């Protein structure tokens, strides 16, 4: 396969003429991304009658633009009020929120936007050029390799909750157990459901996200008059455009960090089911592992904010690759896009690149143009959005509780999901107060069903032989990588201590 430059140039020129679809989709995406419970997937479902009525190409451009901008929007509440708009932004508050509390909300947003846009734009262009080759990654990952990838995600839990690895692991595995609730895949036997029919179809993610992050945070912030510290409040009052410009400058100065973490996101995005949440945590952990100042992570460190934001935008283009090349969507939004395109009679797969290259490559040019147009939103959004954090918690906490709880109702329209979100809120509150990372519980809940699926496939194929987990060469390489990844932070820590001791 070779790169068709003239075709790409023509397509970019054509996509720019669709600005009238892209710009409204960007604003809609930023809004829905910022509201927990209103992911791009939900919004595309809500707007399905509209997208189905559109020309397939226009509909696809609209969906792609909404998807890309919602990813950036999800970082806004994660940074400002410690509530990720979607699960993909769950690693963003780890360093974004401490920056806000210190009165550097403007800087944090500017850094997040630059990382999102630069990471998204770069990976989209890379995906466009390398799509024929990148798509091959998906062919090599079978159940065994996927289990190791999942365990990789779980191992991150311990290193993310670095203050107490054991607590991090307990939280992560507790999340995995919660993620195992529901009917089993073969015989539909109910397991751990407490008799609730609503839990037969697994624990829904939105109530878990809303409860663990939003409700628990709302109960925690009432102990303070404001989200901001006293110093942060003063800083916020005195800050002007210079803070935003400084944020942009800081982000651009970390260009190499943006590049490698977004490429990491792209590669993870190609793996069906892995998604933005795993990518952002992997990027965060890798960034911390190779940092010269890992002890600063979690305290409002710029690189700890850049890594997840670049990675989760890198995933956006990655999830489209298996969708377009082998017809397997890489995530929920990609799955909905597949449904819409199938409705229009479009068949995904390698043939699409021969029969309709405009449609096959179109999502990537649309995404690149979306990211390019989003550049103009950086300055005003970063400048004025942080004002929300000076609002007193007296008004903020009830608002967060009511609107996010109702957001938990939206995806399935079960009243039960609101109660479930409240239960997760209580678990999250206890976890926060006692030093168990809520993000670790959430990633466990996300990975639980995926891990079970691949574990079961591997066990069935090997007729119950656990050694199947070490039967593949690629799997073994991944195992080695996993152990290396777990051991490396300890080794780096040991080296740092030795060096410090030598200096003293």
């Amino acid at each position: 396969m070779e790169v068709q430059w003239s075709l790409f140039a023509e397509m970019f020129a054509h996509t720019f003429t669709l600005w009238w679809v892209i710009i409204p989709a960007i604003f809609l995406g930023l809004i829905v991304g910022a509201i927990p419970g209103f992911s791009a997937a939900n919004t595309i479902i809500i707007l399905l009658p509209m997208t189905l009525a559109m020309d397939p190409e226009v509909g696809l451009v609209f969906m792609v633009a909404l998807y890309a901008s919602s990813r950036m929007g999800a970082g806004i509440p994660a940074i400002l009020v410690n509530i990720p708009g979607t699960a993909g932004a769950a690693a963003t508050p780890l360093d974004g929120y401490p920056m806000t509390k210190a009165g550097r909300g403007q800087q944090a947003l500017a850094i997040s936007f630059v990382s999102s846009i630069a990471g998204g734009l770069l990976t989209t262009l890379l995906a466009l050029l390398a799509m024929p080759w990148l798509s091959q990654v998906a062919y090599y990952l079978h159940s065994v390799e996927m289990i190791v990838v999942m365990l990789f995600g779980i191992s991150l839990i311990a290193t993310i909750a670095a203050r107490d690895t054991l607590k991090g692991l307990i939280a992560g595995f507790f999340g995995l157990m919660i993620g195992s609730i529901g009917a089993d895949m073969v015989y539909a036997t109910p397991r751990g459901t407490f008799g609730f029919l609503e839990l037969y179809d697994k624990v829904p993610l939105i109530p878990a996200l809303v409860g663990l992050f939003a409700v628990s945070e709302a109960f925690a912030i009432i102990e303070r008059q404001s989200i901001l510290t006293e110093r942060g409040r003063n800083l916020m009052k005195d800050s002007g455009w210079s803070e935003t410009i400084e944020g942009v400058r800081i982000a651009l100065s970390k260009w190499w960090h943006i590049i490698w973490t977004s490429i990491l996101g792209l590669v993870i995005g190609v793996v069906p089911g892995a998604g933005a949440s795993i990518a952002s945590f992997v990027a965060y952990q890798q960034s911390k592992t190779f940092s010269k100042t890992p002890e600063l992570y979690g305290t409002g460190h710029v690189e700890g904010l850049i890594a997840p934001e670049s990675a989760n935008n890198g995933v956006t283009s990655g999830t489209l690759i298996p969708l377009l090349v082998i017809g397997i969507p890489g995530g929920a939004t990609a799955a909905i896009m597949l449904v819409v395109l199938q409705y229009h009679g479009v068949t995904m797969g390698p043939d699409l690149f021969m029969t309709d290259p405009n449609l096959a490559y179109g999502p990537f040019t649309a995404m690149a143009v979306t990211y390019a147009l989003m550049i103009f939103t950086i300055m005003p959004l970063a400048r004025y959005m942080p004002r929300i954090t000076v609002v007193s918690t007296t008004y903020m906490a009830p608002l967060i509780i009511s609107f996010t709880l109702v957001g938990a109702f939206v995806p399935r329209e079960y009243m039960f999901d609101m109660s479930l979100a409240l239960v997760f809120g209580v678990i999250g509150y206890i976890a926060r107060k006692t030093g168990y990372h809520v993000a670790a519980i959430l990633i466990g809940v996300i990975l639980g069903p995926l891990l079970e699926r691949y574990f079961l496939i591997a066990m069935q194929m090997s007729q119950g032989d656990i050694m199947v987990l070490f039967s593949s060469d690629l799997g073994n390489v991944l195992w080695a990588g996993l152990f290396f990844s777990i051991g490396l932070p300890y080794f780096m820590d040991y080296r740092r201590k030795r060096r410090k001791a030598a200096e003293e």
Partner: protein
Amino acid sequence: MNEPEKTEKKHLGGDLVIPVAALAFTLYYFSTIIDSPWTAQVSAVFIGSILIFLILIFIVKSVVSLRRGDADLGMDSLLNPRSFILKRLALLGLTLGYVFLVDYGGFTLTTFGFLTLAMLLLSGGRNKRFILILSGGLALGGYLLFILAFDTRFPDGPFEQLMERIL
């Protein structure tokens, strides 16, 4: 000579809540799969066994700290600041009420009621007029944005039904 520094005791009572809850849930989960086919058991037994192992390590570590006198079973990490306990419980009660009543009262009216009461609770009864206006504005804004503009299916109640008839 300097006096030996007094080290503060760790309060492990609060730290044990999550492990104990996780252990109880895992045992309950196991009880629900005891007679199930192996396909329903294998993954959960794998994960649950690791979780129980981790919890046991944590408990052993805690017992060692308690016996050494480095820690006690106080719940300070969970309950502090104690001056907020009543407020927090009252807010939890209001939230439970909201979750229960929103099915009957609908989004707009129940949200208005919840916001008003919760804000009055947290402000200690100050700024009543401002809170009433703010709560009304937010509930109505939510109705306009989510239900009217986005056509989102929020819990339906008398206000939403009335507006549907009028519009």
